[in-house]
């Protein structure tokens, strides 16, 4: 049996909020029997976009992560629901809008905070993967249909096909530590969850300071050389996808016209940004 999965590419999310708005449009004021009761006009974010800024001005970036019900295969809400939450054969998790009335405990069971409490209806609610539309023959849920960059795509796949996709695109769940087997998977999640080391290399020649283009920048730990890159037209370099591992690192910068320079530093919790690494001209 093929099952639904939502694949989200963090590199392509621009925070346009179309997914959030499409979800609001679909569910506010609409009752879909057996699937969902109306979402409140304000407050609920069944699709909720998280943001993370990395680095410091002016060398920084920002990543956006749309989150929603993960339709987990091992869903805590199903266990907690005791019949009020069901897993469909196609992988979609539905909180029964009738059986789940007054079950605030279901909201608390979700470790991702993706279930919302509807005060007026006394009902836990979450994004249903637009199951009512898929059942009518829609090819994509509304969030994916409205996405301008193609960052979001629903894929109906067998377990084997999904495993291949995971392998091929390096897909990850938002919180692997929770072990709930989510069906919402992310590509390029490192843009959100990892750190980078970046900086600008400048050099003085003939009393003029210029950006140093095409300098070789080597990143090392005490024991080994890790990776190298070259500075761009503005003297900038960036190493991405690193873990905040509280380790001692060093950068070695070499260029034919300048004396080699080494910078030692420690990576703590955050990105490391070097505003201005000044090279001296070779004598």
């Amino acid at each position: 049996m093929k099952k639904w999965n939502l694949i989200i590419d963090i590199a392509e999310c621009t925070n346009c909020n179309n997914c959030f708005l499409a979800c609001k449009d679909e569910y506010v004021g609409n009752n879909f029997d057996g699937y969902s009761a109306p979402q409140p006009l304000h407050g609920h974010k069944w699709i909720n976009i998280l943001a993370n800024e990395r680095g410091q001005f002016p060398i920084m970036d920002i990543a956006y992560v749309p989150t929603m019900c993960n339709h987990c295969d091992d869903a805590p809400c199903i266990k907690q629901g005791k019949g009020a939450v069901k897993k469909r054969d196609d992988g979609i998790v539905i909180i029964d809008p009738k059986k789940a009335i007054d079950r605030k405990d279901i909201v608390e069971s979700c470790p991702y905070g993706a279930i919302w409490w509807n005060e007026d209806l006394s009902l836990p609610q979450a994004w249903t993967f637009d199951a009512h539309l898929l059942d009518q023959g829609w090819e994509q849920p509304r969030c994916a249909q409205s996405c301008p960059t193609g960052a979001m795509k629903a894929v109906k796949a067998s377990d084997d096909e999904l495993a291949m996709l995971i392998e091929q695109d390096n897909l990850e769940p938002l919180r692997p530590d929770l072990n709930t087997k989510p069906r919402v998977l992310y590509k390029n999640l490192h843009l959100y969850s990892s750190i980078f080391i970046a900086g600008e290399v400048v050099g003085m020649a003939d009393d003029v300071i210029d950006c140093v283009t095409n300098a070789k920048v080597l990143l090392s730990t005490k024991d080994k050389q890790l990776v190298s890159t070259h500075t761009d037209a503005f003297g900038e370099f960036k190493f991405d996808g690193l873990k905040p591992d509280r380790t001692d690192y060093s950068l070695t910068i070499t260029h034919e016209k300048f004396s080699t320079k080494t910078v030692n530093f420690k990576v703590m919790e955050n990105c490391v940004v070097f505003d201005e690494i000044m090279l001296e001209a070779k004598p």
Partner: protein
Amino acid sequence: MIFSFILWCLSPALRIYSARSEKLKSLMGEKNFVAQIQIKDGSRGRWYKFDNGNLTSGSGIDDKADVFVIFKTPKLGFQVLIHMCSGMLHFVYPILRPFLDPLTVINAAKNFAFEVKGKDEFSLHFTDLMNAMLIHHWKQGLPVANGETRYVNQTNGGPVFVYVKDEKIIRITPIDFDKNDAAGWSISARGQEFTPPHRATLSPHGLASKSIVYSSKRLLHPMKRVDFDPNGERNPQNRGKSGYVRISWDEALDIAATEIKRINRQHGHGAILNSHSSHHTWGNIGYYLSSNIRFMNAIGYTKMVLNPDSWEGFFWGASHHFGYTMRMGTAEPYGQIEDCLKEAELIVYWASDPETTCGSYAAFEGTVRRQWARDLGIKSVHIDPYKNETASWLGGKWIPIIPGTGPAMAHAIANVWMSEGLYDKDYVESRTTGFEKFSAYILGEEDGIPKTPEWQETETGVKARVVRALAREWANKKTYLSCGGKGVGFGGANRSATGIQWARSMVCLMAMQGLGKPGINFGNLTVGAPLDMQFYFPGYADGGISGDMEGTADAVQNYQRMPHMISMNTSNQKIPRLRIPEALLDGETSGYPTDPKSLEGQFQRFAYPAPGHSKIKMMYKYGGSHFGTTMESNRLAKAYQTDGLEFVLNQSIWNEGEAKFADLILPACTNFERADIGEWASSGGYGHHNFNQLNHRVITLQHKCIEPLGESKSDFQIFLELSKRMGLSAYYGEAKTEIQWCREQFLSSDVSKMISWKKFLKKGYYVVPPEVNEKNRAPASMRWFAEGRKKDVPEPSPLPAEYGEEYLDGLQTQSGKFEFEPSSLKRFDDPDRPPINRYIPAWEGRQTNELFERYPLQLITPHPRFSFHTLGDGKDSVVNDILDHRVNIDGHYYWTARISPSEAEKRGIKNHNLIKLFNDRGVVICAAVITERLMPGVVHSYESSAEYQPVGDPGDSPDIGGCVNILTPKRHMTSKTTSSAPNSCLIEIEKCDIGEFSK
């Protein structure tokens, strides 16, 4: 014989169809009256008596009839009647079409060979009744699953499907095309084929449409201010303070019509001001340039002159170097997408965030092309005080710059190019004039100050080395300059005190690099798609049904194709939009016009009051609120409260902004509740071929998806009913309902050659096939100029007289070449616009020491991301729940203002704290958003909130609506332009507690 036969047929037809149409049946029973159709000399005719729903008819003339439809000859009667009936039966129309002559009908009406006489109350009713019969069988929309009907509509941010069930909108979605819709174009570049997805994208504000239709802020009934008595005390001082009482439509329309008549009689020409928003709900019939102008022209009014809000620097500045006044001083938008993908190596985005501004109406159509460019390895650089959405997504070098100092950096780039020989000397030699003088200024030969990268450093905050690196990278690569959102202009830095200088410097830089050569042009993949430019469909500025020959492009585009009554405003009085408050408060003001015909048009100063004209006594406000887009917005609140303004009518959809300052409110409905027609992103007028930002041209019938909510009515219907009270209804409506006007627009366009009206009515949209023959595609912008050939892009401007020698030979400038020292500016003495573009620091900025000491932060107010003008914002819309748009604090949705962590820390501000933005002009309370994306010293907050919510007396109180333009200066960029400069604004911010402002 045939004429008499048609008249005879009419009554059995009405009887038969009334059995099929509830609407027709009810109209037939609504009024008792006699209608007479006849030949003028009385030789032939037939009367129709409607009596409690029964229709009797007889041959002959009833002198006491209530309505007379009179034709000069039977032949004319036949022609008019057959024309009117031609849309009734779909299958007959193709046979009849070659024999129909709409011009005869209009000509007869203009010459009184065809007249409708009698009280408008009956004549309009008779017309309604006839129309109900003629169109009762027109089927709209397609049935889909779940008992829903799928309709189509069009928003300011893209076309949409609207799913409706039981008179309720279920959902509004972007359109995915079906297999019958034309396939997209294809571009080959660097060994790859690029074809856009087979769908239309949609902007956030379009996707939020359902929530603004069903908004709790909708005006559902006509209302009168409680302390406004048209026959007694008017209490203008209470405008914006007092509440409202519901009244009937009859009472409301009677007050409005009586006031219009009284004011015209009592005060004379020009006493009525029509103030309207720059953007309205989409559709060629309902747009402000259509139904609104048609009515205003019929009653005579003082015109509000729109300044080129989003193009200021380009219109007042750049145009003098290279022309393009008809495009507000921005370059031709042709062929750039293909050229950029094939040739360019670098795109410099300067004050340019296309992912936010979306080319105004074009949603995310350019987004996929920027993905292609990125994946092809075309690099990008982003110059902006804020690391905007495009920069954040695409990556590339971000160069933060102190607001308002762009021209200094541009001069330094020119300096590097001159010093290092990094410019196109042949091009400069053969295609430009005045370079020596420009060069003397840049190199400092003229004033002793070389404009070097080091020179600009203290002004711009950009390190000299970065400017040098950029200058070299730019010159060594084939580079596209994306200045402003659309790439060819629009928004950003051109809306500041130095905006004119900045836009001028942008075109001067490109002229040095060989503008128009392969890979060297203006753009950011937003404009210049290879679509069919010749397939005709009217844009909104082609005037719709206005018949307006002066204020729209009707005369140029659609008048010949859709014969209709012309209309003309007989008043010569004008007021700049930016000076409405002064006109009302001081009784006098002046301005410079946004006249696009020539380079000199903008120099013709005009004054208010115009000679011999009345001052403004009544304001007819139409569409969205101006508070959010008016600098020093509090002026407007005070202007509303002046005694001299005797009557304020506001025709609005939502109870927001200016509606709260009216004496009388007429509730209009949205575009989802009326019939309309329009092409996506097609503005026409000075946005000629504006649709070429799209991947697919999409022409939509904008279905009336649901009945108007409450008692609201379409704008057309409101104007028609006012016309009825002034004996103008036959003239105003031309006996057509809105859907019939849609059909007229359809017939006037090339769509009618491709798809039948019946099919178009049902499906609701048509995708225009792209230009498949590559040889027929529009050539790359300005390639002709770079190569010294005659102009070959398909645009009808400049006008013939603007070419100095041979037609199509050269630019619009006097020399026909790019002029570094414009001839037009040499003859016009504006000290702030010297012929050679000099860096003159902003009159409000870091260099204005005394003010900067008190207000050390620069406020920039770009066009908003999630709303469009006032559309989408406020209104209890779901857009408010977007965290980057507004933040809910204690139940109120506050507008967001961004600041850097260092500025926040200095002031003890935490993320989402309430903060007070203030200067001498006022106070606005916002929610703080702390971000590394913004340079220190700058506050970033979008302009054009829909809300204006003073916590106390309007005009003198802090605002919690998010109307940040309260803080921006009303001063024009230069003394001899009427231009806005909101991005030159100094403020201070403080953490605040809303409690301190509660009454």
